[in-house]
Structure formats: C-alpha cells, structure tokens
C-alpha cells in the first residue's frame, strides 16, 4: 500500500538540494515509504556493484559461493578455465534455488528435478528431455550477471550495462591496499551480524562525526582520547575516504585511554583510522592499532529493518587477545551506540511534526560538518528522482 499524500510531508522552507551547504535532510518519509523502497531496489540494489563474498573462497576450479541481494539469489563459481562467473542462483526449469552455501562442485544439480548445469552455466542434462518436443538444452543456460574482483572481494552487478567497478572506484582499491599494512597477509577472523530496526539508509547517514562526541564520548573530545576531533573526507563520485587522526601525543606518551589492548609500536601499526565508503552499501574500515581491516556490509531486510554484516581480518590466525578485544569493543560498545541512535531515528521520523531537518554542512567542511551524509543522500536522491530537485 502506498503512503497517502498526507504522509509525504515536506518542510515548508527547506528542501533537499544538490548544494550540500544549503541542503535539508532527505524527507522523513523516504525512510518508511514502500514506493521509495521499491525505487531503491530497482535503481540502486539491482544496478550497483554489490559485495557477495571473498576471493579466498573461490581459489580453485569448481569453488563456488552463494549470496542474496535482497530477494535476488546469486551464485558465483570458478570454472575449469579458471574464469569467475556469476549467475542468478536459480534453475531455469521451475525457478527452484539451485545451490546453497559455498563449496566445490563441477556440476550444479537442482534438488527439484535434477536438471544439471556446469560451471559455465550450461545445462548439461535434463531428465526426459529427449521425449519433450523441440527441447533444446541450449535454450536453458543459467542467467549470467556481471562479476568483478576488487581488493580481495567479489562484487556482482545485476545491470548488464553497468560500467566496471574498477572504472568507478579503482582508486579505492589502490588506496586501501597501500594504506593497510601487509594487507595481503591479513586473514579472516570473525563475522558479527546485526539485525537492526531501521531503514538501511540511516547506517550511511551516520557518515559524519557531528554525532561522535555525543554518541561515542569515550573516543573523542577528552584529555586522554586516542582520537583527535577529526573526520577528513576525500570524496570521489562513488566512493570516499574518511580519515580519523589518532592523537599521537597521547598515544606516544602512553596517555591515551585505548578502548582495546593493542601494541602501539612497530611498522605494522596504524596510528590513524580510515573508513572507505563504496556507494551504496559497503564500508571498509581500518582501525587504529596493529594492521587490521573490516568489511561492513548493509542490506535492507524490509522497509524499516536492515542487516549489517561485519567481517574482521587480522595478521594473526587465531587472533591475539588484543585483536579479539578490538572486535569485542566495536561489536559490543561502538556499534551498539550507533545502532541505538539509528533505531531511535526510525522511531522518530514517523512523527507528523517532523518533515525534514537541516544538514549541518559548514564552509570549511570541518570534522563536524555533515557533507559525508549529503554525498550519500544526493546519490540516493538522484537514483530515486533523477536530476530533478
């Protein structure tokens, strides 16, 4: 059911603008309107590069992974020819899901009527096909989608005409690999999953540090903070880097109140934190401390709910005590703080007394300025409305 016109409140004076310094927030109803959600599915999730898994699971011929992009089922498989291919993970006979989980297979056999496909997506056998008039195996090839590897990850795109991920965000991959020490040696440690009661966009609206001293008072703004009040954004069309400077004076003097126990000396230590955002829905984060990174990946699970998946990677396998403390700290403390505020926004934006607010963007683009939020919101707006403001 569509929202009534009365529910689509707009501010009498403010409006969303392509100019960050004058822009309102997105209208509140964007966070609970089924029509906006449908547009997002069609124009964002089915047209952008979507993370589906890691290259580590796709090393050998026959290795495969499966993934969901909202209601779309995806299968990625490495062929005998060593080529990576991605398909809709669905049998072309009756639409049954073809493969589950991950593993290694040379033939993908549908559990329903045993139609069998090889790793190139070709239908090799279908029972009783010889007795079905005019049946050609070649008419039932798995439906292929674009796939690309990127920084050790695998991304797919359901839009056959999409530009390559490297052409859109190649700089991100280079920067990421250059700035995270010994990137290629980092190994997977753990996945934490958060089911959040808010629209998925609130996660990315949080790409500002105006909220940091209030929501995360322990990390910024105190005499013994290990982070400087900082949030320097370098923005490109479809990605950005957010730099949070460590308080070197506090760290080097041993005065910093570190939220997790980490060595602060050596070549492999990050003394600043980096967040990279790739439009629309993944964040790559390298935290302060011994080399590490994590992927934060968000998908809607409905109009007013989303799931955030966080995968941690470290130098040590199994992770050291300090590395476990880092994961626990971000999962149990920092992430909870952010989730609480996102869920309280979701509960608030329904209020008929609120239509949209002001994005607090300043001329200097200071650490408190909300231009990172605007970057995300602007791409969102244009995906939903085109360049019509």
């Amino acid at each position, binding site marked *: 059911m569509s929202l009534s016109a009365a529910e689509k409140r707009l501010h009498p004076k403010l409006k969303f603008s392509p100019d960050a310094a004058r822009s309102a927030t997105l209208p*509140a109803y964007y966070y609970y309107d089924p029509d906006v959600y449908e547009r997002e599915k069609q124009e964002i999730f089915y047209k952008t590069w979507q993370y589906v898994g890691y290259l580590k699971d796709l090393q050998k011929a026959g290795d495969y992974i499966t993934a969901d992009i909202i209601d779309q089922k995806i299968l990625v498989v490495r062929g005998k020819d060593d080529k990576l291919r991605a398909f809709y993970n669905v049998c072309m006979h009756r639409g049954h899901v073809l493969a589950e989980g991950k593993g290694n297979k040379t033939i993908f056999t549908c559990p329903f009527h045993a139609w069998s496909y090889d790793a190139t997506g070709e239908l090799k056998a279908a029972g009783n096909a010889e007795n079905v008039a005019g049946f050609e195996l070649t008419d039932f090839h798995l439906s292929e989608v674009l796939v690309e590897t990127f920084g050790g990850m695998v991304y797919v795109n359901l839009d056959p005409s999409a530009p390559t991920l490297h052409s859109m965000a190649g700089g991100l991959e280079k920067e990421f690999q250059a700035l995270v020490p010994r990137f290629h040696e980092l190994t997977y440690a753990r996945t934490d999953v958060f089911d959040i009661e808010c629209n998925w966009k609130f996660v990315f609206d949080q790409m500002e540090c*105006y909220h940091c001293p209030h929501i995360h008072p322990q990390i910024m703004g105190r005499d013994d903070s290990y982070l400087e009040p900082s949030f320097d954004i370098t923005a490109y069309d479809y990605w950005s880097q957010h730099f949070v400077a460590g308080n070197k004076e506090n760290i080097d003097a041993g005065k910093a109140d570190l939220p997790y126990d980490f060595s602060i000396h050596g070549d492999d230590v990050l003394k600043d934190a980096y967040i990279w955002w790739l439009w629309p829905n993944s964040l790559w984060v390298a935290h302060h401390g011994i080399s590490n990174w994590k992927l934060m990946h968000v998908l809607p699970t409905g109009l007013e709910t989303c799931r955030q998946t966080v995968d941690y990677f470290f130098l040590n396998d199994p992770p050291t005590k300090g590395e476990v403390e880092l994961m626990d700290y971000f999962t149990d403390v920092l992430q909870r703080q952010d989730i609480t505020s996102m869920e309280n926004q979701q509960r608030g934006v*329904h209020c008929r*007394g609120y239509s949209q607010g*002001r994005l*607090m963007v*300043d*001329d200097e683009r200071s650490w408190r300025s909300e231009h990172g939020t605007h970057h995300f919101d602007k791409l969102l707006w244009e995906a939903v409305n085109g360049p019509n403001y």
Partner: protein
Amino acid sequence: MATESLVVTPKSRFHPDPELSATLPGYYYHDADIYEHEKQEIWFKTWQFAGYISDLQDPGDYITADLLDQKILVSRGKDGTLRAFYNVCMHRGHILAEGKGNKSIFTCPFHAWSYDTTGALKAAGNAENVAGFRLEDFTLSEVRVEQLGHMVFVNLSPEGPALSDICGDIVSEFRATVPRYDDLYNYRRDRYDVKANWKLAFDQMECYHCPVLHPQIMGKDAYLEPSFEITAHEFWSTHLTRGNKKVISGEKGDLPYDFGPDEEINNSAIWWIWPNLIFVAHRGPSNLKTMHIVPDGPERFIMHIDNFLADDPPQEKSLSNINYNRDVLQPQDLGAMAQQQLGLHARGYFQGRLMVDKERTWRSEHGTHHFDRLVWEAINGSNYETA
C-alpha cells in the same frame, strides 16, 4: 484487499438507527485500509490520553507517550504552562526524550541539539558556520494538550472542539461517585497484549453478554442486579450497574471479591470517552480504574489498566477487587474478544445484528451501536449506503 471481503449481507447493514442496525462488517476488524483510515481519522484527530497530572506538577516535569507510531512529549514550562510536542528532534528526527522526569533543557542524544520547555531550539553545535541557519526555524512541533481531572490528553489535530467542551462534566461525575477522588493514586498498572482488533474491546459495552461470560456477577444469586443503565452524550457515556441487596447483605449467594454491605461505592459505574478510554469504579472503598486501549496493528491491541486506590497502604478488600478484575473478569472478556477475532475471518460470516430493543433494557446493545456509529462516521462520513 480482495473484493470478497467487501461483501455485505443484502438484508442487513450498518444503520444510524440502532434498532435497525447490523454490526460493523466483519472485515472492519482486520482490513489494512480500515486500519489506515482509523489512524488518520480517529487516532490522529481525537483527544488521546497521554498520562497523569501527578507526573507534571512542577516546572520542568515531563512525560513521554506513544500514540501508535507518533511520539509525544508533554512538558510543564518554567511559566507553569503545560505544552505538548512531537517528541522528535527537528534535525534528523531522532527521539528527543525518554520516559518521564524533570528537565529544563531537552538535549537530543544524537547531535546534542538543545530545546527549552517552550520547544524553542536554544543551541545547535556548529550552527554559526552553517549558511543561513536560524535557531527559530527549528522550534519543536507543538500539539494541543489539555488537562481533564487527574489526566492529561493530547490531540494531534489543530482542529476540533476542546476536550472540556466534549466531556468536561465527567470529572464531577467521578467526584460524585468516588467520594475520595482527590486522594486517589495509581497503585498498580496491569498490562494485557490481546490478539484482537481494538474495536472489539468497546463493542463489549453492553450487558447482553454478562450472564453468559460472567455468570458469577450477574445471574441467579449473583451480586449484581441485571442492570446496565446507559446515559449517553455525544462523545462519552456513563453505564451504571446496581447491586443485589440480598446477596450483598449475605442473605444468599456468593461475593466475587471482598466488600461489605455498605461501601463508599455501592453501584458500579463505567464511563467511556470516545474513542478508547474506559473508567470503572467498582463496589468497595474509593477506587477508579483507567482502561486505556491502543492498537498494535490491525489484529492486536494493548490494554493498560491503572488501578487507582485511595488508601495507602491499600485495604485488603481493595486488593481483592483489583486482583479479581485482573485474574477473573478481564480474562473472561479478553478471551471472548480473541475468539471473535478468529471467527470474523470466516468467509461464511459477513455481519450480524445489533440486538437493540425499544426499552433500551440492560440486555440491549445500544452502547455498542453508539461506539460503532462513531467509528462508521469517522471512516465513511454520514454515508450509510455503501460499506
């Protein structure tokens, strides 16, 4: 919505005359469109109970309340004035205040925008560097608020009559019935989550069901006379049931809970305020129950019963009264509603007949019709031709 759920029985339909009227159509109790209409036309346009004035005595005292998906903040200002607002920061829509307490400044937990008790935005970090930013453009959005007796009500619609014009007299009735009305305090809150549409709770404003569902209170040798005298006003009504003197004096029968032959309250009274609030004063020492019902989706509602008593600590017989209500009477009523909710989906049921008699006897269902008619008109206006 499937068209078949729109089918209305050809011979019987909802009618403004209670003596000729069917019940509301079955689908009114589970249809998503009806629920949305009710939200817009009932919940967001009527006076809604928000809390008690005892929590709003001093400047800075505040309470918060939910009205379906709407968040409300009621605050007493330094100037002594009671004001109500949408409880949401005008920056990014984050919830502003939680629970209740006393504050002179409401600071949003997200980016620390700070509002005073009049709703004025007093400070927003970095505002001096944001082009054209003016604090006065972000005053909290205000809603109407009114005190009625010991309670506070809000109305999200700026239009419509004042609450005191609708049912101002109800407070003098409370006082006339409950001798120690001014001593009452909220002894206990009972909560019920019920798998039924909220309207079924108010459709029970009749005593046709009493001897059947509650044989212990009305029937042979029961403590209440068969009685249910309704005095109806436009948007509220009083329902009186009289005690059976022989049972009360101990001559015969059993008492359902503990009370004596001559109490402060001798005849049980029920008051209803449109749409969703009921008060009950049961036989016994001064007492008053608030029964507040809000939907939680088309097929669920939440009921809070606040048990107000005058004695602190309460008398044993007052506890026996409120425990009997919680443990026996309410489960009987709520059980019937849940069974009705299951039944109303049946494709062989469309709508029934409201059993209203000319005399408006104790068994007559005109109280149900009063409520249903206001629901009908909120959804359809004065059009009685189509469902």
